[in-house]
């Protein structure tokens, strides 16, 4: 891995700026895979009448950064990667706002796609973030974890054996 950018921030980010920064002055990048997570109007637990009006994202300063560094390092050990950027926003986020960005560059697309998917899977199940969903009727609830840690680790351990 040539460079790793991790940022936990309240302010919004620009996909273009992040991609441009990853490409700057590098002539060996053949593939750039990105993922952007957005606040959806409907969450999986809400009924049609309870539209999400905003999300509140909380994190554990210090631990979250360590979690993300570890996840990036694990990805780097499995695929030939060039640059990784991980941005996660915190605080109050409205519907359609960007929550998370993961960008991975590599020589070839297979590594970029796999690492980007891997980082998102582990970010969701291993990094110290918590989301609270606020409905239009002002009733908030903490989002329930969907995937267990073991599920995602097993999935990737199996995938690794097959490679």
């Amino acid at each position, binding site marked *: 891995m040539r460079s790793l950018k991790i940022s936990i921030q309240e302010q919004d980010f620009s996909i273009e700026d992040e991609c441009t920064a990853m490409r700057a002055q590098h002539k060996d990048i053949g593939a750039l895979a990105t993922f952007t997570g957005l606040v959806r109007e409907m969450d999986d637990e809400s009924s049609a009448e309870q539209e999400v009006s905003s999300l509140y994202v909380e994190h554990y300063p210090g631990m979250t950064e360590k979690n993300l560094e570890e996840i990036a390092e694990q990805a780097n050990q499995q695929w030939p990667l060039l640059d990784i950027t991980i941005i996660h926003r915190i605080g109050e986020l409205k519907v359609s706002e960007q929550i998370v960005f993961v960008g991975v560059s590599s020589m070839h697309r297979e590594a970029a796609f796999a690492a980007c998917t891997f980082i998102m899977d582990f*970010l969701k*199940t291993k990094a110290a973030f918590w989301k609270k969903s606020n409905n239009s009727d002002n009733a908030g609830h903490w*989002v329930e974890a969907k995937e267990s840690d073991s599920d995602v680790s097993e999935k990737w351990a199996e995938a690794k054996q097959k490679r």
Partner: protein
Amino acid sequence: MATIHYFASIREKLGLSAEQVELPSQVDTVSALVELLIKQHEKDDKEFNSSWGDVLNNTAVLVAVNQTVAKFSSSIKDSDEIAFFPPVTGG
């Protein structure tokens, strides 16, 4: 002094985000710390509607010692940073 953090739904239920606690020498595991915290707070906050025992002894509660995920059986010492939180839901 150990620093204790509470996050997300745990923080809300307890009405507390962090505190400093002097660990007696026999409080050398996370489990022993949980017992101590329950005892101290249930004495102070008799009227608080969520019981500390219900919140912290829930099997879904996770713990980190010095920002690394740990178990309730993990050892702790008085200078440690210990955090309690629910399963993560980022991304």
